[in-house]
Structure formats: C-alpha cells, structure tokens
C-alpha cells in the first residue's frame, strides 16, 4: 500500500502509471511480430493471423482468437484468400479484409457469419491497406486500393459503399492515413510526403496543420479515441499534436527518432490534465505530453498498443499493462504528504484499524474543515479508479468508516460503486478477461457488458451479475436465458429430448423468454423435432403458429391457432393452407377443425360462393347444399334459372331425407309456374308472392276459380281459405256473395269472424246478420262487436257468466242506467248460486 505511487511517473504536472493487468495466458513468442493482430477496445478479444503473407497453398496461416487475457477462444486454419487487415466490430465480430476486397465476418468463436464485398473494382486493383473504425453509426471499414482510390462504408450492418474522389498526385498508397468522423461526416485524412489532404465525399482539399514548422514528410498519424485530436509524426522526428479539425495546435515536440514509430496512439482520459501521445518503436516506448515533457520506457518484447477511452493498453507476449494518466482524485489521495480530505480519511481509517487514537485526530481535522462528505466521496471515487482489489477495499472501508460520522449522506453512490467494483473485478478475472476500467464500464453501460458476456457465453456469470445488480428479469436474467437457450439448441452432441428437457428446466416460465424464439433457432439449425418439442412449452399458442407454418406442420399450426382463440390467426393459417394444399386435403383439414371451418365458410359466403358449394359437397352436407341452392335461386333473374336451382335444392333435400323441405320446394316450383302462367295470361303480377298472397291477389282480381284451384291443388286448410275469402269479399263489399258463401257449408272459422270482418269494413247491417249464427260462447262478444249492448247483456245473463257480464258492464256508459241495473242484479244472482 505504501508503494502505491511506486509506478507513478510525472509528466508535466500530472502523473502517468503503468499497471499490470495480466500475465498473458497464451503461449506465443515472436508471433506478434510477423502476424496480423487485431485488438478490440474496451478490453475486447484479440485476433492473430500468423504469417498472413505466406501464400503457398500447402501451409495455411492459422487464425487464432484470444480473450484479452490471452485465453484461447478459437483457432482454425485460414482457408480463404490473403488477408490485408483484421479488425473487430463494436459487437465483437471479427472482420477480415481480403486482398480482393471481400470482407469476411466471424464471430468470437471463429464461426463464419457472413461476408460482403467492398466493390467490384477492388477485385482488379486489390486492397493495399484497410482500416476498421468505430463511429456513432457503428463499425466502418475504409480501404485504399491499388489504383489509389479510397472506399469506405460507415456501417457494416447497413452497408453503403462510398467511393471517394481521386486524390491528385497519389501513386500507390499514401505515406499515412487515418479515418476521421466529424460533424456526422466521415473523412479520410492522408499524407503524401509533406502534404496533407482531407478527402471527403465530394472533394480532396490540401490542408496544413497550423504551426507545423518542420516540413518533413509525414510518416505517421493518429487520431484520438474521440476523433477530437490528431497527432502527426514526420520523418524529421517531429511530433505535432492538435485538434483534428486542424484549427488548433497543442504542441510540437522533437523526438530524436527519425524512424517512423511502429505504433502511435493517444493516451488521455476524460477531463485529462495532461493528454499525451504514446509512440512505440522496436525497443522504446515514449510518452509525450502536450507539455513536451516525456516518459521513456524500455521495451523488451514485441508489443502491441491498444488505444482506450482512458488510456492505452500495452500487450506483449508475456504481459499486458495499462498505461494511463492517474486520475486527479487518486493523485489527491495517494500523493505523498497529501492533505486532501480523502487522504486524511484514508489515514484516519488506517489508524483506526490499528486501534490508534490518531484516528480521532485525523477525523477531527477533516471535520473541522467540514469536508467529511467530500472525503467520503473522494475515497469512493478513487476506489472506482483503482485496479487492485486490496486498494479498492482499503478505500471503500475508509469511505464506510467516514460515512458513520455523517448523518445526512446518501449511501447510494457508495453502494453502487461497491456493486460495480465487484462486477468489474469478476469480469477482469483472467478466466473471463475483460480488463474494463470503471470509466469504460460507465461508457459502455451494464447492458452492453451483459450482452458481451452472453456473447462470449459466460452465461452463469451474466446471470449472477443480473441477479446481483437486481436488474429486472425482462432486461436481465430472461435475456441471458434466451441467449443461452438459443445457443444450447445448437449443441449437436445432445439429443433433442435432453436439450428440450434441460432448456425447459432452466428457462421454466421466466417472463419475457419466448419458447417460440428458441424453437425458431432450433429450426434454423435444422432441428425441426426439437423445435416442435420446444414449442410445446410456449404458453401463448399465437406465438407457435408462424413457426409451425414455416416448418410445414400446418395441421398442428391450425389446431394451435384454434386453441389460441384468435380468429385472425386461424384465418392466417387457413389462407396459408389454401395456397399450400390441394383442395381435397385442404377441405379434409378444415373438416377436423369446426372453428376454422365456420370461419372459412363465412368468408366463402361473402367472397367465394363456389368454394362454399364444394365445401358442402365434400362433407356430403346435403341439407346445407340444398339451402345453398335456395339462396342462389334468389339471385337468379330468370324464372328458368330459378326453377333449375330449386330443382337442385329439391334433389339435395331428398338426399338429406328432408322430405318436408323437398315437398315445400317442389310446391314452390309449382306455384312459380302457376304464377308465371297467370302473369302471362292475365297480367296478374303474381310472380314471387307467397301462396296466400297469390290467392289473395287472385281473389281481388276476381279470379275466384283460379284461387279455388290453388286451394285444392295445394291442399290449403279450410280455415285459411275461409278467412281469406271472407276478408277479400268484405273488402270488395260483395255482401251478397259473402252471405252465399257463409251458407255454402258450416264455417270452419265460426261466425264471430264474419261479424268482426264486417264491422271492420264498417257494415253493421251485414254484421248483424251473422250474430245469430255465432256459437253461444261467443255470443256476447259478437253482440258487443256490433255495439248491441242489450243483446250482449241478454246473452251474458243467459249464460250466467260473471266475467262476460263484467265485460258488458265495462262497455256501458252512464246513460245505460237500466241495463247496468239489470246486469248488476243478474250478477248478484249468479254469485249467489
């Protein structure tokens, strides 16, 4: 602990430190020297392609992928064309740019994902150099070809190639170039000898870094992580630094090196006090601050520099170190003889641990300045920046100690930092190998960290982290499980049964995990049976259907759709089946699914009448077929058409053993023919009327004979016929005829009807004629109907019916005094009995 400043080197008024991250687990020696190396920022994986330029077909170069700590992840012989450049995308995919402009994309486990080309002309002219760059739009690729043309794509996920204009005077590749993204525009900055050009979509402009005094050739350039700063190295050994828009100069420094550095990266951090550029030669690492101060480190082995958000990593074949500016808060605390509140608190806690009373003195000193809160905050913040768990602990303990003396202090920052540090320590572990600093972690966010862990298949760790940080299941555990299951189904060495079981066991019914999604993955890998097994666990049947259709399990899809109760889904499947199957099979399938069948029938009724008929035919549903014919007869304009439809209906009704309907339809046909005849002969306008209406019309036309014929032919009940005749005669006021008719035989509808109908046609005189014929039970009613109160009263009294007397009474007005008395008397008499 006392030596915490041992690896600090002053640079201007700041300090730089080089912390060891890992002893590399890999077993390589000089390979870094003659390999293509790709290192991903944010502690991402490392890819090596050994001896890329050996072109003999017999020995293929080996492509190896390691974690940042050097744990081998994948290794396979490179079988494609010569590779010019390797790079990592933001989502940890390896991009291999080949000479012919083809870009092959591999995942971190070395399985091929896809490829694309950087343009046709590249095949001829070949790629001379390529660069992979990251911008807010994703991962981009820029190449320069043998014909000295630049082409780039800003986002490989949404590939749009931009071919940049020609650079005047450029032969072959430029002496150095970098990609810049500024103001939402991607540009290339390139140097030809001492000249510098900015190349964008439309133009190529010569520029000059302000104040670059020594006009040697520019041999190396580097932009900072944020694309804000530019460093330029000339063959005279000058290093110029400034803003990347070339408006501002930061410094100029003369190194005594004339050879171009192997690598040059910016080393700065957010709120940097003293940004610097790190240059690496064969045996020397030089850190040049903008204050023109330098630090020199000797290099013993081949190394690679990786620029990070807040520093630079130096990877050699044995070690990996992080070079960074010491954060201000750490300086405050650990600087020798620092009197910052945090430093005092740390000291106080150290004394307290030793049970020394000095603890109190330190504490009092902090309290007197009233900066205990600041002290705690400093300790917590510094702990975040420290890499060594022991230092972290010491700082956190001190913070915790200080917190005890504060009453009004929100612990959330402390708690959060504690948790995050545990997570960071876990992922930094060499077995995982993600050397993230706290600043980087905050930048990429926890979500991305979990994604990366999942992507690297550290499922248990990811789940532990989700649980530990109490991330809601939807974003946390469930998401991890989903990835896990999708990966699990691809394991070829396990049986379908075993995988389904283990997936179900682990995933259970975690919210937000869709079995159909997992099943879709299984199907993609060609494991249809497994997919079906997995789909069974899917609770929402709606989700199962699309995949089942895709897998051509249409029957199953249909029953699942029906189960879901979502008719739209059922209909989707039905439409699909209709197009996929032949008619017979399609109908058979529907037949087993009444819900789908009725749905389809409804649709056919409105859209496809003929299909409907076929459907009924298939089912031998003669009843419905007959109904169908009847319905279609409505649409027939011509009588012949209508009759033939009806005949088909009759046939079907007969087949359905519905003789009632058959007979009714036959009669209808007879009636129609009759009506047609009448219409032709007499112009009666009968077609389409009901039997009753036909007879009525005939009678009103005076065609009694024809009406009578219908009565006989269609065996119309007597009652109906009498009613009809009665009404019709009364309406036409054929009173004599009516009387004759009434006497033709005994009325099947009684004679009260006659009375009422006459009254309805306002003929009291005729009505009275029939009153006497009315049966005794209806006498009172009949008398009342013709308005003969006395007659009614007499009849009622005669029948001794109390209720009828009441009925008569209710019709009497006050003037009928006598009658009322009479009735009342009779009533009393009736009740007495």
């Amino acid at each position: 602990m006392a030596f915490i400043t041992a690896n600090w080197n002053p640079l201007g008024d700041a300090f730089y430190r080089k912390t060891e991250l890992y002893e590399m687990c890999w077993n390589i020696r000089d390979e870094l020297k003659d390999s293509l190396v790709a290192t991903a920022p944010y502690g991402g994986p490392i890819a090596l392609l050994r001896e890329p330029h050996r072109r003999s077909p017999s020995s293929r170069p080996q492509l190896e992928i390691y974690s940042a700590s050097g744990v081998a992840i994948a290794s396979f012989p490179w079988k494609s064309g010569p590779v010019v450049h390797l790079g990592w995308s933001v989502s940890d995919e390896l991009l291999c740019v080949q000479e012919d402009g083809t870009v092959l994309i591999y995942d971190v486990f070395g399985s091929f994902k896809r490829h694309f080309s950087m343009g046709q002309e590249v095949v001829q002219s070949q790629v001379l150099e390529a660069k992979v760059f990251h911008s807010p739009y994703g991962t981009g690729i820029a190449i320069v070809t043998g014909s000295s043309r630049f082409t780039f794509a800003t986002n490989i996920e949404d590939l749009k190639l931009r071919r940049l204009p020609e650079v005047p005077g450029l032969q072959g590749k430029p002496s150095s170039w970098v990609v810049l993204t500024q103001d939402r525009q991607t540009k290339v900055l390139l140097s030809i000898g001492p000249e510098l050009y900015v190349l964008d979509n439309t133009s190529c402009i010569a520029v000059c870094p302000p104040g670059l005094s020594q006009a040697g050739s520019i041999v190396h350039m580097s932009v900072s992580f944020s694309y804000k700063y530019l460093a330029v190295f000339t063959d005279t050994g000058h290093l110029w630094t400034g803003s990347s828009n070339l408006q501002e100069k930061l410094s100029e420094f003369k190194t005594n090196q004339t050879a171009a550095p192997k690598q040059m990266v910016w080393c700065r951090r957010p709120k940097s006090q003293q940004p610097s550029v790190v240059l690496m030669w064969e045996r020397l690492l030089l850190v040049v601050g903008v204050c023109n101060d330098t630090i020199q480190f000797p290099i013993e082995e081949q190394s690679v520099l990786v620029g990070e958000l807040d520093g630079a990593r130096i990877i050699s074949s044995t070690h990996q170190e992080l070079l960074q500016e010491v954060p201000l808060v750490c300086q405050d605390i650990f600087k020798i003889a620092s009197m910052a509140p945090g430093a005092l608190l740390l000291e106080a806690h150290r004394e307290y641990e030793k049970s020394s009373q000095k603890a109190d003195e330190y504490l009092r000193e902090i309290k007197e300045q009233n900066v205990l809160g600041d002290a705690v905050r400093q300790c917590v913040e510094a702990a975040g920046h420290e890499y060594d768990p022991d230092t972290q602990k010491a700082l956190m303990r001190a913070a915790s100690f200080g917190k005890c003396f504060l009453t009004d202090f929100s612990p959330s920052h402390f708690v959060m930092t504690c948790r995050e540090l545990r997570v960071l320590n876990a992922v930094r572990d060499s077995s995982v190998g993600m050397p993230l600093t706290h600043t980087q972690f905050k930048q990429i966010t926890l979500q991305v960290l979990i994604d990366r862990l999942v992507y690297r298949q550290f499922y248990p760790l990811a789940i532990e982290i989700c649980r530990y940080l109490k991330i809601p299941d939807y974003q946390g555990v469930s998401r991890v499980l989903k990835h896990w299951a999708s990966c699990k189904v691809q394991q070829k060495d396990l049986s379908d049964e075993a995988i389904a079981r283990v997936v179900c066991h682990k995933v259970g019914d975690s919210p937000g995990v869709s079995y159909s999604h997992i099943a879709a993955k299984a199907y993609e890998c060609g494991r249809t049976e497994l997919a079906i097994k997995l789909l069974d666990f899917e609770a929402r049947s709606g989700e199962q259907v699309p995949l089942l259709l895709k897998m051509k399990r249409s029957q199953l899809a249909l029953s699942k759709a029906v189960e879901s109760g979502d008719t739209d889904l059922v209909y989707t499947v039905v439409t699909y089946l209709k197009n996929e199957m032949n008619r017979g099979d399609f109908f058979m399938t529907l037949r087993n699914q009444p819900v789908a069948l009725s749905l389809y029938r409804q649709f056919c009724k409105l859209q496809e009448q003929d299909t409907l008929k076929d459907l009924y035919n298939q089912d031998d549903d003669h009843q419905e077929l007959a109904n169908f014919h009847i319905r279609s007869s409505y649409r027939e304009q011509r009588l012949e058409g209508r009759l033939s439809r009806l005949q088909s209906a009759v046939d079907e009704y007969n087949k359905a053993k519905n003789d009632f309907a058959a007979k009714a339809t036959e009669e209808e046909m007879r009636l129609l023919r009759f009506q047609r005849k009448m219409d032709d002969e007499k112009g009666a306008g009968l077609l389409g009327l009901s039997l009753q209406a036909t007879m009525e019309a005939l009678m009103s036309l005076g065609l009694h004979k024809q009406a009578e014929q219908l009565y006989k032919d269609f065996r119309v009940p007597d009652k109906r016929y009498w009613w009809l005749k009665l009404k019709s005669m009364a309406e036409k006021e054929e009173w004599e005829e009516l009387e004759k008719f009434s006497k033709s035989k005994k009325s099947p509808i009684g004679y009260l009807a006659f009375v009422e109908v006459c009254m309805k046609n306002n003929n009291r005189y005729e009505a009275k004629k029939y009153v006497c014929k009315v049966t005794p039970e209806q006498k009172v009613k009949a008398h009342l109907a013709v308005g003969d109160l006395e007659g009614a009263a007499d009849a009622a009294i005669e029948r001794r019916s109390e209720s009828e007397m009441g009925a008569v009474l209710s019709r009497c007005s006050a003037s009928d005094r006598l009658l009322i008395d009479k009735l009342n008397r009779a009533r009393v008499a009736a009740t007495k009995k």
Partner: protein
Amino acid sequence: MAHGVRRDSPKVPDFSLLKRLARDQLIYLLEQLPGKKDLFIEADLMSPLDRIANVSTLKQHEVDKLYKVENKPIISASDQLCFLIRPRIQTVNKMLICKNKSLIICIFPVQFYACEAVMEEQGIFGDVTTDEWAFYLLPLDDDIISLELPEFFRDNFLAGDQRWVRTAGSALHLLHSLYGPFSKIYGIGRCSKMTYESWRKQVEEGEQRPRQAEIGSVFLIDRDVDFVTPLCSQVVYEGLVDDIFKIKCGCVEFGPDVTSSDKSIKVMLNSQDKVFSEIRNEHFSNVFGFLSQKARNLQTAYDKRQGMDIQQIKVFVSEELKGLKQEHRLLSLHIGASESIMKKKTKQDFQELLKTEHCLLEGFEIRESISFIEEHINRQVSTIESLKLLCLLSVTENGLLPKDYRSLKAQFLQSYGVDHLLTFSNLRQLGLLVEQQPGETLTVMESKVGKLVNDKTAGKLTDAFSSLAKKSNFRALSRKLNLVPKSDEEYDLRVPRDMAYIFSGAYVPLSCKLIEQVLERDGWTGLEEISRLLNGHEFAVIVDSKQENDADRIILVMFLGGCTFSEISALRFLGKEKGCKFIVVTTAITNSSRLLEALMDTPV
C-alpha cells in the same frame, strides 16, 4: 316487500370517459389526413358516431361532407376520403373505387385479417392507409353500455364464427383497465367462457397498474342460455317503446301519430329525461296513472305563478320555467307515445297474444295455444309475431310434436312464402324451433360420427353438434328456479314483489334469475343441476376476495348476443332490492323482432 333495510345504491362509475377516449382517437385519426376531406361511414353506424362526435366536432377537423356507405357506388369530389367502417367484407368490397385519392380507412374496433386479405386481393391494400379506431364501447346511458355489434348474435351463435369473441374480450379488458380490477368473475355459456379466456390472456399480456376498483364483479352470459326472455312480448314501458317504435342507439323517432303534428321528432331516451327515467321501468298499466299525476304536478308548478310578485316571477322564469317547459314537452311526447301504444296493444289481439304467451310459459292449455298460433298464421297477422310464438312454443315445450312441427311449418310457408325454409333451417340449428325427438337419437348420431373420425375430433364435432342437440329444458328450469309464480295469487303490478313484474307477474326472466342466484351464492354451488340443464360451460373465478367496499356492489353484466330492455329493467329492480347496481354491457340491444330478423335468410 319487507326486505329489511335497503342500502343505497352505490355510485355508478363515470362511463363518459369511454366516449371521450373514442372521440379523441377519432380526432387523431381525422388529423392524419390534414385538410378538407369527405367522411364516409357505414349506414348503421351513423347513430353511434353521433353519440361520439357531432357534426360540428367533425367540421372542426375539416370534414367537408358526410356520406353513408350504401349499396351504391361511392362518388365524391374531394381528393381526400376517410372511411369509418366495421371490418365487414361486404363493405370492404365497396372500396374498389377511388384510386388516385388519399384514402384512410379506419376500421373499428379492430381490423380482421380476412378484410385485409380482401383488400389485398382487390389491389387497394397498398394504396390506402388503414387504421384501427379502438372504439369498443358506447355508453348508451348511465348503466347501459353497448358494443353496437348486432351481427355478433348471428355470427357467433348461428354461423359459429368466433371472430367477435376477441373483440368482446378486448371490450371487457378496456373496462377492466379503466374501472377494474375485477374481483369476481362469473359466467355461463360457451361464448362467455371464451370471452373470459380472451380477456384473461389480455390481462396477462398487458401491464396492470394498481388502482382503486370501481367495478367489483362481472357476470358474463350467452344469449343462447336464455332464449325465452327475449321471445316474450315486452310490457315494461321502455321495452314497449322499443318493440313498437324501435329505439336506435338510445334514441327513438316518434312519428306524427305520437307528436300530434305532421313532423317526426327524435328523442333521446335516457336518465337525463326526467319523465322517462321515472316510467321506463314501470309496467305499462301504471304508466298512464303516473303520467297524469305528473301532468297534475306540472300544472301545480305552473300555477305557482299566479300569486307571485314581479321579483318572484323573474326568478321563476329564469330558473324554473325552462325546466318546466322541457318537462312539459317530454311529458306530452310520452303521453302521445303511451296513447299510441294503448291503441295498438290494448286491442284484443294483443291481450290474447299475451295470454297465449303466459300459457306457454306456464305450460297450460298447450293445445289452445297451438290453435291460436295456427290462426295467427292463417290470418297472416305478422311474420315476426307468428315466428316468435312458434319459437316460444318450441323452446318451452322442448320441441314440437312431429305432426305439429310439419303442419305449422307448412302453414307458415303458405302464409309468408317458401323463403322461410331457410329461416326454419337456421332456427333449427339454434335449437329455437325443433322437432321433439326421442332422447337417444343424438347419442346414436354421436357414436356414428365417433366411428368415422378419431376421438379428439369427435369431441370437437360433438361440440359443434351440441347446438343441434341443445334442449331448452325450460320446464325443468322453470320448476327448479321457480320462474313462473303461482297464477292464483293476484299480482299487484304497482308494487312489484319480484322481477316477474316485467312480464305482468307471469314469468321471472331466466337470465336475471340466474344472475341473482349466482350472486347470492357467490358461485355455482348448489346450482349444479341447473347448469347441467343449461348445457354447462359455467364458471366462477374469485380473483380477490377482499373485504366489502362500494365497488363490490357494482356488478357488470355482459350479455353476449344482446339483451332486452325488459332484462335491464329487471336488473334495475334487482339492484334496488339488493342495494347494488347493475351495469349492463351488451353486444347490442335486442328484442324479439331483432332476434328473429337476424335469423332470417330471405332475399334482399
């Protein structure tokens, strides 16, 4: 009517929120098409639209002209057209028109895949913007909410097309998210069960914010559980008005015979109407007495003017007169309506019709009733009424004797045309008009079918056949639930003692009785036999049995396939008795003629 101390009815949740939601969304949709546009709307949706947004609101959002979508080509001078339609294939077929115009089709409440397919087939799918207008529920009154989906009944119960079930589920879900969470859900019927399932799924998928429940219990009931009630002639005022003048979307048009002028007047019928709200639930025989009392009161109120000084008259004119005038106007309208009803309904025919209905309900004098029906048919009184009586006879008697079945049908066809063959076929399918069959026939058929196909499908087929086999079992139900009170007692209609008053004391509506029983027992325990007679599919889910609060006394009753005003009146009565409040949600308001017209298949 000593039922102990009645509790006050709890306050009804504010359902106007539903209207506001629908309106806001409509406006949003209209604004999708900036500038002047013509609005086309399906003819039967004019009235519901009027309830949601009146013409001035539409004008505000630059609706130029308003057209009905009818059976003729669509012609419009405007370049921008907006359609408000139900997802009906018939309507979509009319959209062929208007290429080269900006077109928005707002389908409500949801788009169906089938319609989309038709649009695609016609090649207009890509050219138009289709949107969904999530207008599920229209509050017709404080306690009546309608889905305005009259086709629900036929589609679901006759055609077996279940596409509306999800819509019903969504409607319930909407109510649940606005006024829930529901603590108890009961129901009976296949469709109810499916609606419940659909709702439950939607609840599971969505997020539920904890809120104070305003509605406690829900009761779902299928229309086919009780066909008897809607087949009976209505004699409660509101029901009568509906039967005679046809209430459309809470609004009725009184013709010249009522208004005693040469104009027709449209009147909103709801609880805002002071006169109507007092008589709507009354048996018709009381209405006149009530109206004349009201007239006297009104006169007295007017008469107050006599002794007033100027100041008082000023107050009177400014404060009371308008109300009185309004009341006066309404009163005269209702008196007119009552007179018109009297003219039609006190005639002997109607009395005899009622008598026959009561006989059928009681199961007495069936022969006489049959001859009455026969005469009714022979005299061609009215198609619907004849059909109604036939169905009532069949449902109460568990089918007609084969001889009667044939002869009555033959008579009917002679009277009203052979087209009704299809109507009969439909009625038979629904079990509304069937032939009495010896008990074992169905099982024989089932076993035959069972041999044809494998077990699983046989089960499903049986399901499909169940409607064929559906026995109404009305007699048994009536006995068990005591639906028909003993007729020897006088029933004082002015002081109703039970729900039977809505049918002159002759019959307690089965649907409402079921609701009462289930609520009383907190489930179906003890009603097993009854649910068996009703073909099962009953359920009771207690989500949360907390201590009682006000919301528990608000009960949502959802009728799938429509309900009648009489049933609503009966539930209002029940609510008063039990100190709770029933909110009726229905797919549509129905009555005997709407029910039967929906089942007709006559040429258009």
